[in-house]
């Protein structure tokens, strides 16, 4: 595919939806031109506030996202949404259905929504999400909402990307043991008990609050637990207010910089892992062409490859 890098970059910067969409496809498809375009957008990195939304399947992530975008639009912000749904491990296909809950936003020129398949990633996001965020930032959006796949317990990749992480719970999914397990209960900046009109919501709130009492305080922010009904809009204004408070606290305490650094580190490590994995695979292929590899001894073969590849040490000392 022939791509005019300069033109695509300019059109993305001007907020042209079709060009942003094309760029994200290039990113997802691991086309080399994607990197060229992204490099021209890097001056806009860090310009948007990134909000992560995670929680179990059916907990109302998309419906809440729809509401939050509406609230942000009401005060004049522009919003990008990256909504991730699972790809099949078997066929690579995916049914991406998050847009179904966001129909009212489809004709708003201040909103860009993109559905993404996980394409093999297991941390609740897609490998392409890091770069897709850079792309959406490049288009000048002030806020980016990243919705993870419906998570079980340990998919916490979102914590390395977002400035503010919302973790959703709903009534009826389990007892207090669920709330004290490690995993997604550790990454919330704000906990949302959604479908708060259902029986048992306030009990979940109490359980979560009791559990949070035992958490070591993370700087000057104590994660609140909010009762919300994304369906009716109850509790939404309070939630948006808390999100603002969290972002302000992060900015004022300097911890925003820490978070952004974490995102940066995640990106660098991911890029290196990919390069290294490709290089190792190539190396293996070449070696096994030259001589038969001992298929009974994966560890010995791996050690031999590792030694001949590199002598990277911690921190490059």
């Amino acid at each position, binding site marked *: 595919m022939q791509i005019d890098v300069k033109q695509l970059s300019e059109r993305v910067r001007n907020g042209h939806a079709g060009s942003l969409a*094309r760029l994200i*496809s290039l990113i997802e498809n*691991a086309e080399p031109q994607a990197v060229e375009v992204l490099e021209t957008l890097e001056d806009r990195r860090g310009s948007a506030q990134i909000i992560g939304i995670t929680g179990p399947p059916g907990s109302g992530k998309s419906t809440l996202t729809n509401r939050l975008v509406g609230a942000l639009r009401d005060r004049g912000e522009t919003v990008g949404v990256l909504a991730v749904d699972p790809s099949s491990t078997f066929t690579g*296909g995916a049914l991406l259905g998050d*847009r179904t809950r966001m129909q009212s936003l489809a*004709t708003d020129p201040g909103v860009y929504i993109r559905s993404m398949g996980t394409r093999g990633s297991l941390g609740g996001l897609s490998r392409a999400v890091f770069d897709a965020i850079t792309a959406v930032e490049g288009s000048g959006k002030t806020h980016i909402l990243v919705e993870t796949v419906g998570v079980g317990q340990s998919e916490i990749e979102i914590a390395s990307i977002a400035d503010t992480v919302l973790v959703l719970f709903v009534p009826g999914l389990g007892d207090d043991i669920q709330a004290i397990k490690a995993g997604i209960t550790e990454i919330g900046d704000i906990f949302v008990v959604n479908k708060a009109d259902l029986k048992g919501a306030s009990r979940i709130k109490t359980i979560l609050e009791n559990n949070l009492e035992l958490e070591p305080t993370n700087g000057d922010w104590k994660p609140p637990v909010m009762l919300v009904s994304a369906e009716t809009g109850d509790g939404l204004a309070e939630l948006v207010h808390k999100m603002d408070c969290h972002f302000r606290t992060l900015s004022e305490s300097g911890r925003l910089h820490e978070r952004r650094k974490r995102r940066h580190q995640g990106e660098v490590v991911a890029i290196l892992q990919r390069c290294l994995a490709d290089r190792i695979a190539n190396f293996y292929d070449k070696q096994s062409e030259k001589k038969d590899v001992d298929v009974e001894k994966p560890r010995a073969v791996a050690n031999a490859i590792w030694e001949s590849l590199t002598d990277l040490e911690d921190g490059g000392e």
Partner: protein
Amino acid sequence: MSDRRIRVLIAKPGLDGHDRGAKVLARAMRDAGFEVIYTGLRQSPEQIVNAAVQEDVDVIGLSILSGAHNHLFPKIMELLEEQEASDVLVIAGGVIPEQDIETLREIGVSRVFTPGTSTQEAIQYIEEQVGGSDACKST
């Protein structure tokens, strides 16, 4: 190295609420390795075209059983043109009388699948038109 997937938007334009066919097809396409963006019921032409542009899809599949295709499809084709997205393959399915098919083809609907079409036939048509989804086949 490319890792391309065929992306398809499945949309229900207009006011009929029958989405069984659309969902069965969406599921079959998922199993064929496509990324299917399902947008739900009662979509306006503007919503459909905006979604198709934002999602950068290769194909739009329109499912309609209300009889309003002669009214809604031209509008969709017009908006695609306006948004520089006329390269998207548009296919349709549902209850569409034989005598309307030629008119729809003239405005750019690539193929109309009438009741009785197998899901495989539709999938095969898409693969022929926009290229295989298998990452191993592409370069």
